[in-house]
């Protein structure tokens, strides 16, 4: 089992333990999203081992990723502003690009442009959330704030992915210990993402327990 699948399964288990009884449906849905993530990752790996195309699996996953992540951002930023128009516009743009790419090169090639634009959109959401957080007059204990750590994980992952995607053509030629450097970067980004998310789920559990 690869490190990425291991950390994804661990995060999924933590999500189930911490969020299954959460009052907020958006947070509860994270367990379902992580289950889909684990299934996608395992299916992708199995297809790769069987020497079959697996990019269509990640294309399907892209739909879930865009929806669930936007849903979460909408919930988190919605505490400060009416976030619905912003997220519906973001989703519409992603959908438009997705359809364009599918028409352009078919379903069996990964929608790279959609993934890159989606990452940029999510990075913008992350910065917007932090801007609203700084502007907010109320103080929050950030070390125990579930939304803060969830967004931190997303920022690391999507910002990192965008940067790597931008320099991909140059980085592809760099190899370390028999692997391409992008493999190590993406593994590190995934570890950071799921560590931050796991911690945010634990924070959410603390908050839920203390409120009830």
């Amino acid at each position, binding site marked *: 089992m690869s490190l990425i699948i291991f950390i994804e399964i661990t995060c999924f288990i933590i999500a189930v333990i911490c969020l299954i009884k959460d009052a907020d449906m958006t947070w509860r849905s994270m367990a379902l999203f992580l289950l889909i993530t684990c299934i996608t990752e395992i299916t992708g790996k199995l297809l790769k081992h069987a020497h079959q195309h697996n990019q269509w699996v990640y294309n399907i996953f892209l739909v879930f990723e865009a929806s669930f992540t936007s849903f979460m951002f909408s919930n988190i930023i919605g505490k400060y502003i009416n976030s619905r128009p912003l997220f519906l516009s973001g989703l519409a743009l992603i959908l438009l690009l997705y359809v364009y790419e599918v028409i352009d090169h078919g379903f069996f090639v990964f929608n790279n442009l959609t993934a890159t634009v989606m990452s940029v959109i999510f990075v913008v959401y992350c*910065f917007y959330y*932090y801007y609203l*957080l*700084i502007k907010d007059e109320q*103080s*929050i*204990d*950030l*070390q125990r704030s579930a939304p*803060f750590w969830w967004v*931190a994980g997303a*920022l*690391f992952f999507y*910002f*990192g992915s965008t*940067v*790597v995607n931008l*320099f991909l053509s*140059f*980085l592809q*030629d*760099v190899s370390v210990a028999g692997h391409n*450097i992008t493999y190590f*970067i993406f593994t590190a*980004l995934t570890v950071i993402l799921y560590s931050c998310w796991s911690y945010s789920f634990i924070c959410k559990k603390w908050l839920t327990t203390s409120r009830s």
Partner: protein
Amino acid sequence: MQKMANHIQELILIATLIFLLAPVFVILYILVYNRRKIKHIEEKEQMKLAFDAEIVKTQLEVQEQTMQNIGADLHDNIGQLLSLSSLTLSSIQLDDLTKAREKIDAAIDLTGRSIKEMRLLGKLLQGDQLLGVGLSEAICHEINWIEKSGKYQVDYLHEGEMPATSNLDKDLILFRILQEVMNNIIKHSFATKINIKLAYIAQNMELHIDDNGVGFDALSLHAAHNGMGLQNMQKRARIVGGEVTIWSLQNEGTRISVIIPYP
């Protein structure tokens, strides 16, 4: 050519690593900023608590001062008048009706004066509540009480139009400073003439008090940290963003100005 390509690759790698570190700095910045925000909120709360405590203390001091004034009035004025009435009534001899009538009239006069004094005392008792009606009104009552002793000639001038909305906390602080200054004048200055001016100029409430008393060396008093009353005045004025200025020289009287942003 190969060397150049390797160099570019290295640069790209370094740039990628720098970009990957960017979120770390963003998150660290937000954490530090939030910590400062929490500290600032805590400091604000502490300042508010200190301010509230000072206001309560000032209120208590105003009440205590009023009680002291009442006590002194009861002892020195009303007590004396009633003792005299009692003495006059007890000395009446009914066999001498003319003298008895004179004494009864004197007792009636003394009782009337006692009633008048009691009424004034009643108003003094409301002194700390008078701030609700207005600072100027409260100052007038304080002056009435001081003038009653006959030892001081007090001139009061009220300048400028008062703002539509008053600030009770600031009124209370100004009134307490006035009481404190008056106490100092009565206890130490041997003054005969007191001038009080209350003015509202350019969103500042100004209270100026001067006397023709013996004065004191203001500089040495500050250096010796002996003027606790004066320091209290400064402290109180500062908590509402104001300032107290004291001019005084030996045998040249004292002038005190209090300027507070208002309302």
